[in-house]
């Protein structure tokens, strides 16, 4: 790793007061415009957003967060209750259809009709059917994602090569 690359890692340590500059590092920094530019960026980054963040009052935020959690829990309970209500209603309708009052409906829908197979699927072999099922099982967009490897897919050596090109 070049001296500039090594110093780049050290900058974060010094910036966040976890370490101090060594004498040799100060000398390098003084004579290297590229490293000085990086240090200037990092110093600006350290203070970035501080003015906006200072307007957030954690003392007031705590109770608001707790109220938000309670409200979200109430909403979840209400949704669950609504869902269970819907399920109960669906069960009631099903029972009604299967009860003596629902017989008329059953008579108009002979069982044989329900069992008529889909002609398109009937003509397929077992292998073709399995192929179709595999397509349903594959996650959406999986083919596109696998075609485009990200940095996370690269090995250490490949990442090192990329870094070397960045560091010049």
């Amino acid at each position, binding site marked *: 790793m070049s001296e500039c690359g090594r110093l780049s890692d050290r900058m974060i340590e010094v910036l*966040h007061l976890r370490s101090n500059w060594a004498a040799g590092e100060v000398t390098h920094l003084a004579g290297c415009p590229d490293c000085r530019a990086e240090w200037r960026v990092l110093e*600006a980054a350290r203070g970035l*957003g501080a003015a*906006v*963040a200072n307007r957030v009052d954690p003392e007031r*935020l705590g109770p608001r967060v707790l109220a*938000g959690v309670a409200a979200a829990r109430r909403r979840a309970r209400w949704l669950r209750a609504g869902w269970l209500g819907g399920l109960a209603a669906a069960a009631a309708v099903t029972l009604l259809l299967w009860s003596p009052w629902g017989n008329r409906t059953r008579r108009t829908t002979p069982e044989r009709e329900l069992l008529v197979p889909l002609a398109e699927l009937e003509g397929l072999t077992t292998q073709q059917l399995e192929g179709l099922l595999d397509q349903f099982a594959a996650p959406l967009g999986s083919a596109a994602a696998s075609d485009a490897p990200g940095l996370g897919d690269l090995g250490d050596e490949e*990442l090192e090569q990329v870094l070397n090109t960045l560091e010049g």
Partner: protein
Amino acid sequence: MSAPAARSTVLTTDADLVRRYRAGDERSATTLVTRHANAIARFLAGSGASGDEVDDLVQETFVRAFRALDGWRGEAQFRTWLFSIASNLRRDRYRRAARGAQLVSLDGVDLEAGEDPATTLDAREAELALSRGLGTLPRLQREVFLLRAQQGLEYSAIAVALGTTPGAARVHYHHAVKRLKELVT
């Protein structure tokens, strides 16, 4: 607050506070908010959220965190986990709004009371240039840079927060620095 009480607050770990909150102690939740709100707000402001958005997003980050505490197994730092939630929230909002990232407004670099305008002008200009530069970076590069430079996280923690690898985070960081150096200097 007495000295022993103060010491006990400092020594209480995030994991302890989470455990107490789950046992019903709501004060532990407010302690966690007080401890981490500023860092989360700075991260969100740095990533382009406006002042009003920041307040709202910080609150929502904690609400989601406390509702999903089962998802935090203590392997990552609690704050790292919060960064992860904040990042996802910001991305969701951005997608929903279907508009470009808002740069930190000039409000974001207003002078604090008591600051000397002459001595802070250079630093403020650099911050403004940086916030503009960050707005031009891809989201992952921007967030990796902020977690590293603004928050001082190690690459391993950044990888956990943003769902990438430490090696990839390192490359994203150097890409971002290279670009920002051109814009800020």
